[in-house]
């Protein structure tokens, strides 16, 4: 901050906060003028393609490049032998992943050889002629990985990496790469005191995030530095890994991010950048590597899960014990798996007031393609199970499902996890709104059943309470906000421009927010965990206030008063006696045309809170479903989302985050599933077999009502959004199906499973 702090915060100048302005990037995107990495063409650029392992686990005996090397147009074949430094493994939590397989392949689809050529066709042709001999090893999956004689996916020691936290302490033991344990209260005593106990086994499939732009990167080596353009969410963390892999200083790796064609977690952390950089390192020309969607599925996916979950309650319906034993399949490499398993463990109890909790979640290596982040992870994995068991308890206790929840819902300040910040939101009013919304149940047509359900998403959000921003205000009143956040479609650039316009008192059209460039934009940890508006938005607000403070000092001088007596409102500085100085007159005192003021905004340090999570992202949802008894078909009639955003800086962007998240969650619950063969080969390798929601699949009515209590840690009381429904919607859909007698223990709830459950009615015992 500048020496001269602005004392009175500027009031609304452009009415920007809470205004659903048109996105500045929308028209560019409509017209096909928005540039994504795959659209860049650099002089002399070469193209890379990747040869992937056809087997799930094997020694690589020999790689014969002789025939391939003669391919016309080929520039270079690259193998693990070409790695420039002794650091051959990457991974932000566990350093377990090679850029290219050296002696062992661990999943079907693992990269083995890169061909670099004048065009993709020549590179592909060369790869067809590469001859690799594999000596097969036994494979493991989630069913076999923990047996005592299971082959190890990583028999060699795995080093920890740079992103460690006391909460997620990953350690490889056998095929388990991280174990979460949370035990509080007296589980056995709670169980002994229970009047009602429900316990079942559940499975959760692996989904594919399907960002429509596949992972794309261009890398260029100049001497001992690397310039990288990538469609990634977390450029600063990718930079860290590339610097380590290539033995470079952080500033010798420059990451630039243009528009990103969707992320949802699939572009968080490091994906294909090391391959692009290795290829570029070997050829001294820019190299472009763009996945096909089929390759992107093999690059990252969501963790599938098996869980045994127990709920015990007293005769009054008070919840006593939530016990869960969870296995998460992270595939051959850890990537973000330990964090995903941690969040899953944290989310397993849900927002309820347990007497005791006993949760173990293991993150397990298998011979499958690696799994990473997907929107709302953890909450998406477990909330549907938790709410489903609460409905079962309500039935056993003879209580209304809302009444049961009212007796147990955590109040503000209630504890979700002993080592984490207490709940910082009020769920009770949302519960009442959901109950009201579902008060009238439509009557079904003959042969149909109509069920209603509810769920809460409670996601630890914000990742890390640190952010930086730089703001620049030019003499002509135009401003630029420089941040490391990436624009993945969520509208971060729009919201930052609103905040800047609001604080600086300039029109929205006067503010631009360029993309992230690690050589220019200040450090930002990541774009994810709903943190951009909350954390970076706050840094933007502070950077702009810093500028206003500098202007106020000049204005005070001109007005002949001391700076603390100057007020900034409606783009005007005024003294107590009513004399005023418009913003543009103050700016006119700057140097020649291009001169500017630079403001700095920092979140983290000083009086800023350090507790974790930064905030709890909560969302209540309700669903009404119609089931066709004859076919098992499910049609979603209505969903209601109540995302708690503190303050909506752009209500429309929040609403479309909710609708997008709702439909992705609907796909997750009813449609989507990656299916693997016995050796880990993907049986659903493309969008033909992997079915995502289409326009005709969405709920007939989708409503979103924002919860705004102005209580978020972000700018103007805002909190992030867009992940809560991923916990809430699957839970609402599952409990709605349960409401009409469909037993759901395995997702996705396909028509076949619904039909089977309806036809098993009465005869189905507990597992």
């Amino acid at each position, binding site marked *: 901050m500048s020496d001269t702090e602005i004392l009175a915060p500027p009031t609304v100048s452009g009415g920007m906060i809470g205004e659903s302005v048109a996105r500045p990037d929308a028209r560019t*995107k409509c*017209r*096909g003028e928005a540039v*994504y990495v795959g659209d860049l063409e650099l002089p002399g650029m070469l193209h890379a393609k990747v040869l992937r392992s056809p087997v799930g686990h094997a020694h690589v005996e020999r790689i014969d490049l002789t025939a391939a090397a003669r391919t016309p147009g080929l520039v270079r074949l690259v193998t693990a032998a070409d790695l420039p430094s002794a650091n051959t493994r990457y991974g932000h939590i566990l350093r377990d992943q090679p850029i290219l397989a050296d002696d062992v392949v661990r999943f079907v689809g693992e990269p083995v050889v890169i061909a670099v050529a004048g065009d993709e066709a020549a590179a592909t042709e060369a790869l067809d002629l590469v001859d690799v001999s594999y000596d097969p090893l036994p494979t493991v999956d989630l069913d076999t990985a923990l047996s005592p004689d299971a082959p190890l996916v990583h028999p060699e020691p795995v080093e920890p990496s740079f992103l460690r936290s006391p909460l997620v302490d990953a350690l490889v033991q056998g095929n388990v790469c991280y174990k979460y344990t949370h035990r509080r209260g007296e589980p056995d005593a709670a169980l002994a005191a229970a009047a009602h106990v429900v316990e079942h086994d559940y499975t959760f499939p692996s989904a594919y995030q399907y960002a429509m732009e596949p992972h794309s990167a261009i890398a260029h080596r100049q001497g001992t530095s690397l310039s990288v353009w990538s469609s990634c969410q977390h450029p600063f963390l990718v930079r860290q890994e590339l610097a380590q892999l290539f033995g470079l200083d952080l500033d010798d790796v420059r990451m630039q991010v243009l528009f*990103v064609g*969707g992320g949802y977690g699939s572009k968080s952390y490091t994906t294909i950048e090391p391959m692009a950089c290795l290829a570029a390192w070997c050829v001294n020309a820019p190299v472009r590597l763009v996945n096909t969607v089929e390759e992107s599925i093999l690059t990252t996916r969501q963790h599938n899960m098996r869980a045994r979950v127990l709920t015990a309650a007293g005769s009054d319906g008070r919840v006593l014990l939530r016990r869960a034993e969870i296995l998460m399949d992270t595939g051959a490499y850890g990537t973000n798996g330990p964090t995903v398993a941690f969040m899953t463990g944290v989310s397993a109890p849900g927002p309820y007031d347990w007497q005791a909790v006993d949760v173990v979640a293991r993150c397990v290596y298998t011979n499958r393609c690696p799994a990473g982040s997907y929107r709302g992870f953890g909450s998406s994995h477990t909330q549907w199970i938790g709410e489903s068991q609460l409905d079962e308890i309500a039935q056993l206790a003879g209580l209304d499902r809302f009444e049961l929840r009212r007796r147990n819902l955590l109040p503000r300040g209630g504890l979700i996890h002993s080592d984490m910040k207490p709940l910082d939101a009020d769920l009770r009013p949302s519960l009442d709104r959901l109950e009201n919304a579902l008060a009238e149940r439509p009557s079904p047509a003959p042969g149909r059943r109509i069920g209603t359900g509810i769920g809460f998403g409670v996601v630890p959000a914000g990742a890390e309470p640190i952010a930086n921003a730089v703001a620049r205000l030019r003499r002509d009143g135009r401003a630029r906000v420089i941040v490391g956040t990436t624009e993945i479609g969520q509208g971060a650039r729009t919201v930052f421009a609103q905040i800047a316009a609001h604080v600086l008192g300039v029109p929205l059209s006067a503010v631009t927010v360029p993309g992230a460039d690690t050589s220019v934009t200040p450090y930002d940890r990541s774009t994810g965990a709903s943190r951009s508006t909350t954390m970076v938005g706050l840094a933007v607000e502070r950077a702009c206030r810093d500028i206003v403070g500098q202007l106020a000092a000049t204005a005070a001088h001109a007005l002949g008063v001391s700076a603390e007596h100057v007020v900034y409102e409606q783009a005007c500085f005024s003294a107590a006696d009513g004399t005023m100085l418009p913003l543009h007159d103050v700016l006119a005192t700057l140097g020649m045309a291009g001169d500017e003021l630079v403001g700095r905004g920092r979140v983290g340090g000083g009086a800023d809170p350090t507790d974790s999570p930064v905030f709890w992202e909560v969302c209540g949802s309700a669903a009404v479903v119609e089931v066709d008894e004859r076919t098992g078909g499910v049609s979603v009639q209505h969903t209601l989302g109540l995302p708690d955003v503190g303050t909506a800086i752009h209500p429309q962007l929040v609403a*479309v985050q909710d609708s997008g998240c709702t*439909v992705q969650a609907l796909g997750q619950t009813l449609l989507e599933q990656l299916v693997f063969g016995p050796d880990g080969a993907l049986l659903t390798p493309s969008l033909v077999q992997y079915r995502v929601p*289409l326009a005709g699949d969405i709920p007939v009515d989708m409503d979103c009502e924002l919860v705004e209590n102005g209580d978020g840690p972000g700018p103007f009381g805002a909190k992030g959004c867009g992940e809560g429904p991923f916990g809430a919607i699957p839970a609402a859909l599952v409990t709605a199906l349960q409401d009409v007698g469909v037993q759901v223990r395995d997702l996705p709830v396909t028509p076949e499973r619904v039909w089977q459950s309806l036809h098993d009615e009465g005869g189905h015992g507990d597992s």
Partner: protein
Amino acid sequence: MPVDGPQVTDSPDRTDPVPVSTTVNGRPVTVCTSAATLLVDFLRDELGLRGTKRSCDVQMCGTCTVLVDGRPVSSCCHLAVDVDRRDVRTIEGLADPADTGNSIYQLFEDAFVHHAAVQCGFCTPGFLVTLTSLVRDGTLHAGSRSGQICAALRGNICRCTGYEPILHAVESVLATLPTPTASGEQGGTA
């Protein structure tokens, strides 16, 4: 669905150059290209028209949609040689004020912006190309119900918006169109 293109039967080698004469966004183009070149690559890499995006490669997602003789096709599953002597329009052409379809395109662009139907934007040009042509050929009109709109859009995937803002945008545009004549029901498909 794509229009049927001329069959390429006697190409001895897929890399042999084949002459292609076509009109792209109103400009005549005559080039030699490989018989194996996909239309999407031809437009993006050889003509530099990168508004057409590529995603699924299997005719499911619609990001690569362009118009061939006025009808929407998936350029990922179309060969460049298939547009020989045909008229191709891409998003760059439709968005150009000089294009004959621009007035309808412009209605959709305005509605997409207004309804926040654009998030990451990767799917957006494909949606706009499809929608513009479906209105021009009468498939979608002022009387289209939401089921018909969804059916018409079954070849376009969006992962960001949950479709709802897109459907609102489409409905708002259709509401401004004149009521259809009986023959207006005929025409293209999604």
